[in-house]
């Protein structure tokens, strides 16, 4: 029996054959996946259906077809599940007339969380200095942190974040990623959507790629890349005899193309392992000095480009 890479064994959030359409427009089409402890990145371009999927998971949108559950409970039927799950939405979703402290305290009150945790959450997102200022005067990044603090104050077991790093500067970004990582390390389920590939790559243990409302790929980054055996791997080779190397590489049956850019060769191959064996040998034969051999497309960026192109 084979198990889909979109499904995890210890699932806390389950999405079964879910579709959502708005009139004639299909936003999400027949998606089945699950999420468990750790960080799962939901990756896709703007308009891919990530936010719609997250809103269905939270219960803000009703699936047109299929079912969604958190800890086995349909959130639209039992709001009690929100004592264990929290959402940081993409939109502002803050009360501008409240201070950050009042906003986080409001979230604590609504979830029945202790007031003592308000200061802890504010400190955790490093918002102490601005905690007593109205949110209306906050920058986008500060608002993001206030929303994260309001979600964390309830100590959720499932944290759903829709583009949480939007508007944050690199220092804030690193800080927030650290918080999400620590939550994941302590066994919480963290779902992060983003269209910024580097963000997901830095955060996620596992990736679900959504393209045009469908699940295009799932698994860890390397596994996704290996699953795409029908496209060539791209490798960057740095060598002091580029033209001779290029000519010899093209004579092999594992290289489909070579581009020379100064001392850099961009090589496309169908067999990364075999190329890794051949290149040092060829370099030795032509007495060339090999200084770099790096796969170019092990990043999410290339995976994502491929997925978009393939559809």
């Amino acid at each position, binding site marked *: 029996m084979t198990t889909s890479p979109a499904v995890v064994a210890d699932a806390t959030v389950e999405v079964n054959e879910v579709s959502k359409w708005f009139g004639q427009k299909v936003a999400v089409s027949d998606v089945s996946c699950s999420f468990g402890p750790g960080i799962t990145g939901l990756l896709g371009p703007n308009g891919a259906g990530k936010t719609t999927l997250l809103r269905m998971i939270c219960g*803000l949108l009703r699936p047109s077809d299929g079912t969604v559950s958190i800890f086995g409970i349909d959130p639209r039927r039992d709001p009690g599940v929100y004592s264990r799950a929290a959402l940081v939405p993409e939109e502002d979703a803050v009360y501008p*007339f409240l201070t950050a402290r009042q906003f986080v305290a409001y979230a604590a009150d609504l979830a029945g969380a202790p007031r003592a945790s308000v200061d802890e959450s504010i400190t955790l997102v490093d918002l102490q200095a601005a905690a007593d200022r109205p949110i209306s005067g906050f920058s986008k990044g500060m608002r993001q942190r206030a929303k994260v603090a309001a979600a964390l104050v309830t100590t959720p077991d499932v944290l759903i974040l829709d583009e949480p790093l939007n508007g944050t500067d690199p220092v804030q970004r690193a800080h927030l990623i650290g918080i999400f990582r620590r939550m994941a390390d302590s066994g919480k389920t963290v779902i992060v959507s983003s269209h910024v590939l580097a963000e997901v790559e830095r955060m996620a243990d596992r990736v679900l790629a959504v393209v045009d409302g469908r699940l295009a790929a799932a698994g860890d980054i390397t596994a996704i890349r290996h699953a795409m055996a029908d496209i060539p791997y791209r490798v960057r080779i740095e060598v002091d005899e580029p033209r001779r190397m290029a000519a010899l590489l093209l004579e092999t049956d594992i290289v489909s193309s070579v581009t020379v850019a100064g001392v850099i060769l961009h090589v496309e191959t169908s067999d990364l392992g075999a190329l890794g064996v051949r290149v040092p040998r060829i370099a030795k034969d032509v007495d060339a000095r090999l200084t770099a051999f790096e796969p170019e497309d092990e990043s999410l960026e290339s995976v994502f480009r491929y997925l978009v192109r393939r559809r």
Partner: protein
Amino acid sequence: MRGVLSIVRVSLRQAVGGKRIIALGLVGLIPAIVMWLASQHLTERAAFQRFHEAPMPILFLMVLPICALVIGSGAMGDERRDGTLSFLLLRPIPRWMIVAAKFFAAWLAATGIVALSGIAASVALGARSGDYGTIGPVVISVAISTAAYVAVFMLLGHLTSRAVLIGLVYVFIWESSITFAAPALANASLFRIGLTAYASMVAVPSDFDEVLGNLAPGTWGAVAKAVGITGLAVWALASMLRRRDTVSE
């Protein structure tokens, strides 16, 4: 319970925040100003008569519906517009309790403004006639009609972003024109719910019957109507929030 009280507290600030309270406060001054200006040199009895000819209809046909419309439609509408509806709804609190708390806050805010307006007009009457007996009945009848208006407009505010426009059409076409032209329709008029309670507590002049339509005075009937409308609206809104999409595409 702490969560529900917090919703009421935050919603009250939301309802009366910013320039809204100033604008509604200015509208609320109109009945008292009209009473003061229109009752100069009148006898006590004539001042009492004048109070029911001008300030009371202005209070119930203009100040009350406008305040209830702005605050009621904003109760859920502001949350939807500001994107905070998801913040509010994704909580371990039953939807009907969230809606009831929102209603209560909106009703409290609107009643506060309109009741102060009514009290000011009654005080103006008292200053002319020495009779301050209308204050209590005005406050009670305002509270009753405001409940019905706020409940209906809160539902409207959730359903459409054009709630204020639709509400104004309802108030000034239906309430102020059609139900006067066809007294048989007076039953379907929200401002008259409170006025029937008022008429049961105050010996109103005979020509006040024109404003009442064909409705019989009665406090408990009015309370029952307002409670029924409120309950229905809260139930309908909570059902919508549970069954339908709570955010748009």
